[in-house]
């Protein structure tokens, strides 16, 4: 039964403990005095432990010693012997260990053996490799050189492409500039249009305002004129009244004459006629009065009308000025619009050109890229080949290293004895 | 009673009656036994008496009564002896004289002489001057005044029946004095003729009561009879006789209203037209109010037709038969023939020719004069004078002709030279027609001729002037040994004539077309100068030019390229009146001018144009006669 050391120890412990316990129990039973019970139990336990321990430990210690001796042998490179340990009824890790060690020994023996063989082979390969490496390296150099040439040509092409590309780019830039100027122009034109429109609007507004004012004025003027007309009408009516009064006066005179002719019968009539004449005369006077008043009103009216007329003339001037301003604005707007449309078309053209340039640029860039790619590719190739060369050299180096290593290894392995010393390495 | 209103009517009616009487008498002279004529004559006299009596023209009434009685006698006898015709004619002449007195508001002239003049059988017929001079005014002492109880003693066989002036007083308590008076008037009227009564019948009818009534009664009965029958009536208190009182005449000067006889059919037409005009007026008023111009136009068209119609009819009223003027002529001829000791037959054929009243009025004297001339100078010892009239288009031709000795052209020509009217050269250049026209020249009348025109101052020059003033022309056609015919061509209506309007210094004037030979525009270049005179050649004749502006003393104006000239006849020669411009031609209604405008020499009338403007119508001849700086007796022309 395999019992691990630890278990052994634990067992041992348990026995101890158990023993304590038992002793604890037994001792009293034995009739040992109580003060001495503990000491007896403990002592008993100790005894037990000592006894068990010694049993186990001997076995154990023996093994360990053996192992130790084996390890020493290994250390001396003696791989020839396995480790032997007495078997035990209760095997433990020592046995494992011994096994393991034995296995290791085996492995080691294989390994060393293998190494011995491999190393030899490696050393041989290394020598071959080194030779190849040297060859590759030489051709790589060639490639590198050719590639350099290519690279240099490619570089020139790339340069030209680059140049054209630059030129085109410049062109594109200038076109862009133009486009942007055009754009600026268009914007300013638009701004002008806007401004002009605003101006025109303002002018129109103002004109409308003025017109309004003028119309109001005219209305006023018309009202005043109408008033004047009314006054004139009154004047005419008064004239009519005056005329009628005059005729009535005449009529009254003639009536008196006729009445006189009628003699007696006409007396009453004559009185009436005289009254009529008086009435007519007073009407004439009143009419004259009204006429005077009307005259003064008319004069006043005329004055007002004159000043209104003046104002209107001024306003008219203003209005026509505004009209011309308005039309100037309109002209400006027109021009601006034209400018804008021109600018827009320029911008469009520029855009077109830019687009064209850009596509050119793109194309050229493509070309450039291709060229560059080429260049790059060749460079890569060159680099690659150089890398290759470098790698080759490294490889050669490595190979040499390897070889050296292999040698070393062999060297090192030499000290190991795997078999009974029969072969010579 | 104020009868003065009716005076005009009385005068014209009586004049008509007298005319008829004259005609009848002349007819009776040829046919003394014409019963109808006698009857008619009686009736005429009776009418005149009645009217005169009711008008209060006592003497006229008396004379008429006298004549009436004469006629009555002849009615019974059935024959009018020639002496009676003379007396009757004298009577009608006297009546005419009385009418003149009445017209002039004078007292009626004396008729006593006539009434008391010897009976026809005793009167000598030959050599009696039957002029119509007014009888010398004699003292009124033989006026038969009817005194209260006296009856008239008249030496004439035919008694002028008694005229009684009654003054009747009614009782103070007479119930209805006015009615009573009326009844009384009627009663009295049965006894004779009530010449006058105060208060008059009208007033009595109105109820104007008067206790005292004065009645002028013409009655056969004696005063006593009258009185007796009057006193029988109720309420008559007293009947007295008084001296006839002259009817106070209105002193107020009337505008001699003249009257016209109008056919009733014409009046009916007027009524109709007036009715239609009234309708038309309503129509126009309505259409104007509704502002329907179509209707207004139609209305105006209608109005225009109505006015034309009215105008036509009004003119008709003015038309009188020529006979009314020529009616007197037989008498004139007869009287003058008697006086000159010639036997002249007078025939007149004027048919139904009618002329405007105004023309006829002015024609009467010239016709008389021409007829007298014919009898006086034309007829040698025996012959015929004729007056005839006929229509020639729009003219009436009145011809006075005789079959006597005719006029001697050469001697007239000689006379003209002698009188200094023409130079020998000019005289030689005249055609026969033109020579004869010289007779009508004012300066031509010889002294002898003047007296023979019986002091009326009507010479051929006046005749011509009158005729031309009427818008007519005068032509003399003569043939030695065969007779002379004087033709007057007159427009049918003087009222409407065609005038040529001309302008001088901006003033429009009219010249009757009948005076215008030609109206033309001559080129400035055509005008030549001959001495101081401007002339222009026209139809192989140099026609002198005179500026009408200058004649009228108006400022002259420069004319343009052409010079407007009115060619007219002046004293037998052609003459051109230069005006500023022609202003058209019009049919113008001529208005006669009254004093003081009628004294304007050379202005024959005026007319009112459609636009209301008044233009005067010139008589170129008269104008030039009175022209400035012109020797009136010199003809204008060249001295060769």
């Amino acid at each position, binding site marked *: 039964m395999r019992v691990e050391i630890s278990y052994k120890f634990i067992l041992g412990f348990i026995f101890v403990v158990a023993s304590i316990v038992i002793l604890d129990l037994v001792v009293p039973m034995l009739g040992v005095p109580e003060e001495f019970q503990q000491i007896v139990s403990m002592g008993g336990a100790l005894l037990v432990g000592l006894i068990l321990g010694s049993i186990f430990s001997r076995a154990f210690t023996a093994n360990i010693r053996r192992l130790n001796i084996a390890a020493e042998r290994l250390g001396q490179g003696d791989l020839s012997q396995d480790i032997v340990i007495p078997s035990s009824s209760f095997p433990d890790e020592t046995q494992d260990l011994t096994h393991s060690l034995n296995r290791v020994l085996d492995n080691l023996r294989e390994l060393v053996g293998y190494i011995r063989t491999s190393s030899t082979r490696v050393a041989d390969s290394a020598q071959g490799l080194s030779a190849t490496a040297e060859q590759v390296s030489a051709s790589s150099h060639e490639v590198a050189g050719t590639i350099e040439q290519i690279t240099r040509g490619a570089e020139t092409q790339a340069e030209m492409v680059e140049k054209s590309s630059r030129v085109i780019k410049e062109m594109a830039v200038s076109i862009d500039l133009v486009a942007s100027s055009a754009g600026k122009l268009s914007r300013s034109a638009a701004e002008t249009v806007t401004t002009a429109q605003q101006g025109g609007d303002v002018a129109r507004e103002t004109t409308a305002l003025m017109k309004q004012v003028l119309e109001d004025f005219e209305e006023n003027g018309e009202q005043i004129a109408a008033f004047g007309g009314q006054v004139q009408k009154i004047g005419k009516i008064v004239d009519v009244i005056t005329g009628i009064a005059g005729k009535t006066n005449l009529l009254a005179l003639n009536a008196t*004459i006729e009445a006189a002719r009628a003699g007696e019968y006409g007396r009453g009539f004559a009185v009436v006629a005289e009254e009529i004449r008086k009435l007519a005369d007073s009407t004439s006077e009143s009419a004259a009065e009204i006429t005077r008043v009307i005259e003064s009103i008319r004069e006043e009216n005329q004055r007002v009308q004159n000043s209104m007329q003046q104002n209107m003339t001024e306003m008219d001037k203003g209005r026509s000025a505004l009209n011309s301003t308005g039309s100037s604005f309109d002209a400006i707007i027109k021009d601006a619009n034209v400018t804008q449309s021109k600018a827009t078309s320029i911008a469009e053209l520029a855009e077109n050109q830019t687009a064209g340039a850009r596509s050119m640029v793109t194309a050229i860039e493509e070309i450039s890229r291709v060229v560059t790619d080429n260049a790059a590719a060749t460079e890569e190739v060159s680099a690659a080949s150089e890398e290759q060369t470098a790698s080759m050299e490294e490889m050669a180096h490595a190979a040499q290293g390897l070889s050296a290593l292999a040698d070393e290894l062999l060297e090192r392995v030499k000290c190991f004895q795997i078999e009974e010393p029969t072969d010579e390495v | 009673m104020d009868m003065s209103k009716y005076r005009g009517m009385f005068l014209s009616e009586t004049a008509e009656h007298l005319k008829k009487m004259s005609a009848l008498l002349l007819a009776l002279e040829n046919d003394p036994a014409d019963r109808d004529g006698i009857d008619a004559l009686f009736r005429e006299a009776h009418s005149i008496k009645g009217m005169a009596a009711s008008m209060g023209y006592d003497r006229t009434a008396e004379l008429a009564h006298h004549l009436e009685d004469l006629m009555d006698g002849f009615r019974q006898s059935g024959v009018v002896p020639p002496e009676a015709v003379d007396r009757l004619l004298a009577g009608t002449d006297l009546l005419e004289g009385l009418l003149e007195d009445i017209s002039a508001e004078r007292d009626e002239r004396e008729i006593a002489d006539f009434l008391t003049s010897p009976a026809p059988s005793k009167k000598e017929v030959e050599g009696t001057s039957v002029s119509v001079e007014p009888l010398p005014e004699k003292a009124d002492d033989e006026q038969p005044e009817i005194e209260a109880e006296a009856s008239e003693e008249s030496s004439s066989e035919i008694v002028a029946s008694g005229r009684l002036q009654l003054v009747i007083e009614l009782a103070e308590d007479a119930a209805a004095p006015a009615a009573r008076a009326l009844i009384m008037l009627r009663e009295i009227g049965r006894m004779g003729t009530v010449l006058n009564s105060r208060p008059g019948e009208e007033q009595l009818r109105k109820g104007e009561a008067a206790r005292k009534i004065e009645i002028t009664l013409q009655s056969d009965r004696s005063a006593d009879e009258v009185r007796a029958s009057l006193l029988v009536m109720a309420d008559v208190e007293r009947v007295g006789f008084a001296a006839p009182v002259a009817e106070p005449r209105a002193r107020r000067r009337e505008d001699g209203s003249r009257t016209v006889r109008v056919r009733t059919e014409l009046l009916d037409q007027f009524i109709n037209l007036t009715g239609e005009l009234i309708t038309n007026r309503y129509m126009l008023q309505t259409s104007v109010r509704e502002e329907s111009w179509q209707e207004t136009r139609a209305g105006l068209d209608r109005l225009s037709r109505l006015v034309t119609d009215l105008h036509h009819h009004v003119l008709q009223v003015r038309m009188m038969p020529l006979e009314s003027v020529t009616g007197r002529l037989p008498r004139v001829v007869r009287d003058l023939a008697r006086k000159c000791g010639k036997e002249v037959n007078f025939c007149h054929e004027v048919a139904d020719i009618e002329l405007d009243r105004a023309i006829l009025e002015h024609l009467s004297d010239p016709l008389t004069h021409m007829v007298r001339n014919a009898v006086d100078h034309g007829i040698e010892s025996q012959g015929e004078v004729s007056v005839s009239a006929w229509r020639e288009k729009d003219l009436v031709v009145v011809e006075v002709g005789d079959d006597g000795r005719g006029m001697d052209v050469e001697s007239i020509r000689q006379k003209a030279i002698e009188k200094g009217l023409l130079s020998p050269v000019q005289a030689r250049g005249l055609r026969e027609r033109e020579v004869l026209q010289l007779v009508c020249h004012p300066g031509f009348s010889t002294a002898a001729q003047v007296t023979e025109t019986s002091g009326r101052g009507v010479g051929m020059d006046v005749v011509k002037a009158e005729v031309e003033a009427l818008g007519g022309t005068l032509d003399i056609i003569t043939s030695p040994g065969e007779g002379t015919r004087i033709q007057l061509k007159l427009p049918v209506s003087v009222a409407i004539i065609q005038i040529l309007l001309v302008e001088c210094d901006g003033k429009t004037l009219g010249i009757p077309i009948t005076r215008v030979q030609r109206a033309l525009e001559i080129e400035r270049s055509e005008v030549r100068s001959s001495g101081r005179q401007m002339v222009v050649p026209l139809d192989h004749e140099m026609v002198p030019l005179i500026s009408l502006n200058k004649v009228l003393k108006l400022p002259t104006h420069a004319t343009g390229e052409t010079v407007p000239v009115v060619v007219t006849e002046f004293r037998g020669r052609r003459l051109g009146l230069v005006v500023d411009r022609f202003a058209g031609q019009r049919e113008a209604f001529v208005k006669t001018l009254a*004093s003081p405008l009628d004294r304007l020499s050379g202005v024959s009338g005026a007319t009112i144009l459609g636009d*209301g403007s*008044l233009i*005067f119508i010139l008589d170129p001849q008269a104008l030039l006669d009175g022209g400035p700086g012109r020797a009136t007796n010199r003809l204008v022309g060249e001295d060769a």
Partner: protein
Amino acid sequence: MEKVLIFTLGDERYGLEVAHIQEIVESPPLFYIPRAPGHYRGALNFHGTILPVLDLPLYLGFSQAECGERVVVLPPSLGTLALAVTAIERIVPFESDSLLPVPQERLGHGYIRAALEREGDVINMLDIERLLTTLDQA
């Protein structure tokens, strides 16, 4: 009781009996009269009758006086004539026996037949008959 029309010629007052007046007309159109003496202003159409219009102020010797608009038409019974005067005033009644004889010096032109005193003013009564007679003979 008669009535008189008072009018002015120049600055003098004149009067004409109403019985001698047919009508007063205002501003009638006046037409040229050929060959008319200078004292006529023209002819007027008065209801179809043609009346000459006499420049009364001028005729009576008021050379400076103007003629107003109103014209006095005489009755046809008096004559066919119209008078242009300076101004028409009014019609007033007057008693014919209140007329005074005309002082000698005023009788110069002879067309005043009497004087009428009124409100302190002297009105010359026009002798129309004499005027007409003179015109007729002119």
